[in-house]
């Protein structure tokens, strides 16, 4: 699914997949930090977003 999104032009770093157990708090923090960093670098998403104005 990630591949098809990327194929359609959604940036690779925009969508992330991970599997984190409820007992892995530190892994959760690490993954979310990394995702935030990557997504922030890309800026706001304008694709597949509806414009209601």
């Amino acid at each position: 699914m990630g591949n098809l999104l990327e194929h359609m032009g959604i940036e690779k770093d925009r969508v992330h997949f991970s599997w984190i157990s409820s007992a892995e708090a530190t892994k959760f923090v690490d993954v979310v930090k990394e995702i935030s960093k990557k997504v922030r670098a890309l800026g706001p998403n304008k694709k597949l977003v509806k414009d209601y104005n």
Partner: protein
Amino acid sequence: MDTCINKIRELSLKLLEENEVKKVIGFAEGTIPMATSPVTITRKQDVEKLVFNSTCGLNLANYIRNQKDKIAVIAKGCDTRNIVTHIVENQVQREKLYIIGVPCNGMIDKSKIESLFEDEIIEFSEDGGKLNVKSSLKEEKLNKSDYLRKNCRLCMHKNPVIYDVLAGDLVEEQNFDNPYPDVDEIEAMNSETKWQHFEDLTKNCIRCYACRNACPICYCPTCFVDESGPQWVGKGQDKTDVNTFHFLRAFHCAGRCTDCGACVEACPMDINVRDFTRKLNKDSFEMFGWEAGLDIARRPPLDVYSPNDPDDFIK
């Protein structure tokens, strides 16, 4: 392929006469040239209505579900692959089908032919590899090989993969070093260009769902676009909804699509919706060595778990 129609009629007649099957599903001449349409034959005097030529681009596997009695179906290479998919997905039972396999030399791109003419085409006939197309203004003699559909050009399974009887001699299969040049072309683009490509591709989409209805693997009792509680996707012409529809429909076909081209054949706006599904076909092939509909004994890749499944996308 021209001579096989006699064989198809002969076999169909015999099957109906002997009461082996109750119906024969095939193609009949449409109301305008180049527009053959699916037909169900139940009486033996109607067998003459059956035709088979290079305009039979729809997929007859779409019409074999929910049948009470044993039926016969006329199936080219891709149709038989969809029949296999149906059997694997428990939509039909093999013993309730009589498959008349037709080795196929490809179907023609009707839009490409229509674009040669300024007015309406009034006559179409074919003879071997030659097509004769006539409008009131001019007549063209074309080579069929120049006007094949894009999916037929890249087809590697022209011969039926499952059948009870063949209506013609097997044809030579094509082999390609790279079966997915069209996908590579899009993959080479950057994100913005890709996005633009798909925006342009679907900009004329009128949400008629002809692609979904023609698709043999789109058989959900309620499609996600018709669902109203919850409503997964908006029903209007908003480009986000249009792209969501195409994206999700394609993903539902992952590992199941046989690239039969029925979606593109049915599209009234000439949208090459295969640009979506082809990527998934390529991924299935590269990640799982899988091509849909080749073996009734194997489950599709998204249906089974293996410890060796590629998982490098998960962090």
